[in-house]
């Protein structure tokens, strides 16, 4: 049978999805299953890794049967996954030691504070290009060693395996306790704080610092190569790609050249800029990360700026203020007025992230007058996402040698026309939306298909990319500058609101 499809697995924060793509990069079938979110304590977020593995076992046959396809028609499998989520399991039984600790989990916050003091950010930035943050896996491993008795010793004795979600799934797909492959890819490893960003190998000094034994870590492989064959679920089919979800979206948007960038607009938003084979060290508050590595070719790097509150500001407007009954209605309400009426909302709900990194900031609404209606507030909500994008893009332009020429967008908020026009207006570059909205899944499929020879080269993938919509900048430059100035003055007013405990 001729291989007709590539299967993509998107192991996301809320659900796992399997999508079959054809040669044109079009979706043929989709199967999705939500998994439970566990919140055992404030700030803690956990997933059951076994539930996720079982979901995957059920989803793959559904995706195949919906397309009327057999396993022999699948050329390759690629995986994209929620990044940084940490699972430890028993090498001999294959059973997770506890629930997986999710990237949003903030239990390591006090450890982050300690590390910033000593040894300080520079120690980490030099090696892995990441500043200490609750996101990254190494801190979770350390936390587990410090809180689960005997765990550190068991890990040293080689009884325990660590992985992010792609490692866990690949290990299970390739046989689990019966010789399963224990591997990760460079994009996922670049989010652990344990990988040297230049050599793409586990960094001895970082391992020693966190006390993580080498024996529990997966082998770091490229993002697109034949790792091995699946032994269950899709027996005999090659597993040929793994990428963190945001890197997969960059790949799915075919941002293969330096200077190309994508922004995924969801609850939060993630902007990644391809910087080519150079490791660009950000001086403006962005993270350096591996974008992808294809086989034995040199790795391609990216600058990443994440915006914590974008879609979640709309949700707040809907659920907490009750001014709209569904998220898309924000646009309807915003269109009842001509402009923001002088009102600005800075959604620093838990501080400001990239590029400002101010944990002492809190949200503010400024410019209130008796003239302001809920329509103006709706405008200010959408504009906050636009201006936050502008700040990240400004930081990227300052760090990178090539200025952004257009922004590729995806994610749920791209359905909001007014917002997309505003983003184009404030960035002063065209904003384009691709025809396949599922860029994360598509990116994993593309990488897998490339490694399996289903697609010959990047150029063919580029030709599969089609513009579904384009918004051209259409704002008077004087007005853009004046509005940006107002936004920045609004941000200044959000700073320093939180004081350390005990201050007057």
């Amino acid at each position, binding site marked *: 049978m001729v291989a007709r499809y590539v299967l993509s697995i998107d192991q996301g924060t809320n659900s796992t999805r399997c999508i079959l793509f054809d040669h044109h990069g*079009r979706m043929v079938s989709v199967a999705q299953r939500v998994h439970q979110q566990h919140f055992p304590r404030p700030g803690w977020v956990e997933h059951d890794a076994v539930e996720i593995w079982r979901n995957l076992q059920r989803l793959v046959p559904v995706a195949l049967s919906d397309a009327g396809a057999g396993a022999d028609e699948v050329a390759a499998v690629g995986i994209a996954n929620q990044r940084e989520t940490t699972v430890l399991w028993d090498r001999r039984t294959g059973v997770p030691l506890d629930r997986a600790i999710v990237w949003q989990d903030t239990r390591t916050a006090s450890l982050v504070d300690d590390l910033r003091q000593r040894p300080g950010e520079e120690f980490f930035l030099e090696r892995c290009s990441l500043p200490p943050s609750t996101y990254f896996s190494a801190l979770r491993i350390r936390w587990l060693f410090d809180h689960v008795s005997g765990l550190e010793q068991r890990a040293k004795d080689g009884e325990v395996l660590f992985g992010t979600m792609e490692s866990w799934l690949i290990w299970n797909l390739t046989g689990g306790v019966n010789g399963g492959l224990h591997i990760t890819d460079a994009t996922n490893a670049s989010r652990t704080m344990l990988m040297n960003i230049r050599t793409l190998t586990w960094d001895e000094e970082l391992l020693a610092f966190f006390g993580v034994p080498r024996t529990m870590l997966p082998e770091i492989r490229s993002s697109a190569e034949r790792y091995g064959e699946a032994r269950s679920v899709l027996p005999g089919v090659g597993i040929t790609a793994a990428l963190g979800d945001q890197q997969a979206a960059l790949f799915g948007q075919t941002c293969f050249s330096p200077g190309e960038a994508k922004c995924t607009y969801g609850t939060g938003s993630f902007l990644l800029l391809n910087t080519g084979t150079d490791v660009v060290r950000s001086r403006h508050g962005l993270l350096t990360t591996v974008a992808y590595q294809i086989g034995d070719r040199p790795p391609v790097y990216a600058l990443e700026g994440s915006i914590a509150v974008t879609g979640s500001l709309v949700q707040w407007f809907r659920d907490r203020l009750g001014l709209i009954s569904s998220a898309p209605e924000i*646009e309807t309400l915003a269109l009842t007025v001509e402009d923001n009426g002088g009102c600005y909302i800075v959604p620093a709900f838990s501080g400001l992230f990239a590029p400002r990194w101010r944990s002492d900031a809190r949200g503010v609404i400024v410019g209130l007058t008796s003239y302001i209606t809920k329509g103006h507030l709706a405008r200010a909500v959408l504009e906050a996402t636009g201006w936050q994008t502008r700040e990240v893009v400004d930081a990227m332009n300052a760090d990178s040698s090539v200025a952004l020429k257009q922004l590729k967008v995806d994610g749920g908020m791209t359905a*909001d*026309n007014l917002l997309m026009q505003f983003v184009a207006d404030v960035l002063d570059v065209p904003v384009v939306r691709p025809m396949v*909205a599922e860029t994360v899944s598509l990116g994993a499929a593309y990488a897998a298909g490339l490694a399996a020879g289903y697609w010959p080269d990047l150029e063919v993938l580029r030709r599969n990319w*089609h*513009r*579904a919509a*384009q918004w051209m900048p259409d704002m008077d430059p004087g007005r853009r500058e004046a509005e940006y100035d107002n936004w920045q003055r609004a941000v200044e007013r959000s700073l320093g609101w939180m004081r350390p405990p005990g201050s007057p």
Partner: protein
Amino acid sequence: MAGPVQSIERAAAILRLLAGGPRRLGLGEVAASLGLAKGTTHGILRTLQHVDFVEQDAATGKYQLGAALLHLGTSYLDVNELRSRSINWADALAARSGEAVRLGTPLEGRVLVVHHVFRPDDTLQTLDVGSLLPLHASSLGKVLLAFGTAPMESALESGLDAYTRHTLATPEELGRALAEVRDVGWAAEVQEMSMGEAAVAAPIRGHGGLVVGAIGLSGPVERICHGQGRPRPNLITLLREAARAISRDLGAARW
């Protein structure tokens, strides 16, 4: 002719009861007031809640009239919500058909384009969300007229301008065409707005089958139609599949 439908009479009585007082009412109170069994009453309340005519207070479980009743005369589906719910299906339709896709809803005697997906050939195209099309000379408009989403009077008030020699410029011609649209379930427009262009459209239905908008494909006449000037059947199939998929997402049961 069948007699009155009992459950609809009962639903009307429940609405009158809830409209009568300022207070929210519990299930038991509603059932007792109307002399109905609790199970029956609950079924009707649940259905009324489903169509947003009744709201249930989350804390007390008591019922009151829903906000939708106050806006019965206006469209119940926000156009931006319609776009948001259609976007993936509209993309897939454009990718499979190779043609541009638009969604339309009625606005003051015209068709408002609420969503637009480019033809997937990466040629220079301009987003025309927000532009207005004539009801009688567009396939989207014909669907909205045929299924009662836009009233015929509004089209006549806007005037049946003849854009080309193919435009249906009399009420009689238009009426015949709309009857056919209702019959076959989709509408075509072949060089009726501008020479060389053609389009096809199908209805998007919400709860209870009510048509809330139209989705259509458009392009050069030789791509949309085959030699005899009729739309290509494969495009119609793709179009209707997309329209049905969106309708199912919006809660239409049988489409």
